[in-house]
């Protein structure tokens, strides 16, 4: 595909454009949030407890989205809270993408006993409802960032491994791979130069969709109190803390929920858009 067709497809795919622009905005906000927020995300003023949103009446220094039960500015916490979600999602997607791809390559390329064992392991991990397994493991091991990332990674690599394995199996016996074998290419060489470039597109699409998914699971876990530690602002934690005040101070819950939805939506749009752009044949 040359760059011109790529650009044409990008311009035609509104999903991709909306997705990429929103994602860029969210990521930028997450990075610069400590510099732009007007209030302290951790320590509140109890006199401002559950203060109603005042919009732009007080300007940037005011309490645009109101305050939470501890008198902390909701907008500040939503902005700072994005960092936890982004950090976890990025790390988990990175880890699972790499390990899943490597394991999938090994499984698909070598086949045999290795393949069988890995695939059964995948089956076993897929057989336990994702969030349930994650929650149970963290509940036992204790909840902190590292455990959270480990747990989400343990189940996350399976999809990549299966995807890669399937594609490797399809390519492995194709003529051009056999041709390189005849030419004396080694296994590692074939994997790196022939197989890997062929599966990057589905991997990128999968990664972008997993990103949104990890954020959702993390929010669910934080809501249940086994995700991000309560001391760190996170969207799930904020929703959980604001839950009792839903009748009197709904803004405490609405704001992080909207942020969560827009973020996940943006990554899902990006994933669908990427498919339109990179792999139009596979459109459903």
């Amino acid at each position, binding site marked *: 595909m040359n760059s011109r067709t790529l650009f044409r497809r990008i311009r035609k795919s509104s999903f991709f454009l909306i997705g990429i622009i929103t994602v860029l905005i969210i990521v930028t906000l997450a990075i610069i949030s400590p510099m732009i927020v007007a209030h302290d995300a951790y320590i509140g003023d109890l006199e401002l407890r559950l203060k109603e949103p005042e919009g732009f009446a007080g300007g940037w220094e005011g309490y645009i989205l109101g305050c939470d039960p501890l008198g902390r500015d909701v907008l500040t916490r939503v902005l700072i809270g994005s960092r936890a979600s982004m950090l976890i999602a990025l790390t988990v997607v990175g880890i699972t993408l790499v390990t899943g791809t490597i394991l999938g390559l090994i499984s698909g390329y070598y086949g045999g006993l290795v393949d069988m064992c890995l695939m059964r392991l995948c089956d076993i991990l897929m057989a336990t409802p994702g969030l349930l397994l994650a929650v149970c493991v963290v*509940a036992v091991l204790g909840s902190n960032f590292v455990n959270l990332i480990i747990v989400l990674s343990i189940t996350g690599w399976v999809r990549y491994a299966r995807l890669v394995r399937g594609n490797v199996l399809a390519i492995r016996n194709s003529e051009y791979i056999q041709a390189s074998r005849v030419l004396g290419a080694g296994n590692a060489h074939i994997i790196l130069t022939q197989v890997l470039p062929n599966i990057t597109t589905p991997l990128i699409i999968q990664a972008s969709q997993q990103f949104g998914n990890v954020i959702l699971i993390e929010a*669910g876990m934080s809501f249940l109190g086994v995700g991000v530690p309560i001391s760190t602002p996170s969207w799930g934690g904020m929703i959980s803390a604001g839950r009792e005040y839903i009748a009197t101070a709904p803004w405490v819950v609405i704001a992080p929920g909207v942020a969560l939805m827009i973020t996940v939506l943006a990554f*899902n749009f990006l994933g669908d858009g990427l498919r339109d752009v990179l792999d139009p044949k596979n459109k459903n």
Partner: protein
Amino acid sequence: MLQKIIRRALATVVVLIGVSIIAFLLVRLAPGDPAKLMLPDTATEETIQAMREKMGTDKPLFIQYLTYMKNVLKGDLGTSYHYNRSCSQLIFSRLPSTAKLAGFGMLLSLCFSIPLGMIAGIKKGSFIDTLSMFFAMIGQSMSHVWLGLMLILIFAVNLKWLPSMGTGTFKHMIMPAIVIGFQFSALATRMVRSGMIDVLQEDYITATRAKGISKFKVYTKYAFKNALLPVVTVVGSQVGAMMSGSMVIETVFSWPGIGSLTTQAIYNRDYQLIQSILLISATIFVVCNLLVDILYTFIDPRISFN
């Protein structure tokens, strides 16, 4: 075909053994000595040792696993130390409640998503199609917690139409069922839509029209069955998604099912109960998947006789 089913069932058994190992190790991995946890802090070293022997935790892991499995197969999942009741009793007393919720949720979402997906697929590119795709996107991106809380805010707090939590009447079930089925309706809408689009391009649809069958009947009978089959294949995996979702949803709506039992077990650090829930949930999930696979071979003639 029978051979295929048997092989599939055997694979399921392997998976279940794997799950039981995970569930078993999970509790053994827990920090701290399980015997100490069962006893007051003032317990002497001898009483702790005696407790270890009683619980069998002084033996090698492999032996412990075998003992555990022997008990599990006898139906003994251990005792929840918080409730001081047998885990299996606790779980099975809560299970019907969750099953009811999930079943109703699935029914609701099918009733909603099948017509929507069909109309969207038939009228591809129309306003309703765009709307359905937008809905499918939102459905994928919405967190259970937040959707639940928003429904409570709108229908319980502001409109006062529905009770915000608890159980008992049909009204109690509506909101949690909508939330538990929401993701599935998004997925199903998407699948029915793309299935419909694909099927309507097939020769046999033109052939059916050439026989004089009306458009309406072609859509609702002859294309419908083809477009719907793929949805059946994901029903199994949705059981898992709903189990995950039920934890959050039942907590939000105070619904007395497996999900809220899990949450309580986690708060109470009731490891034995967590272990048992994990095992039972995985078993149900795997068995549901197996049943759906078998069912599918009967529904889709192309598979059953090949």
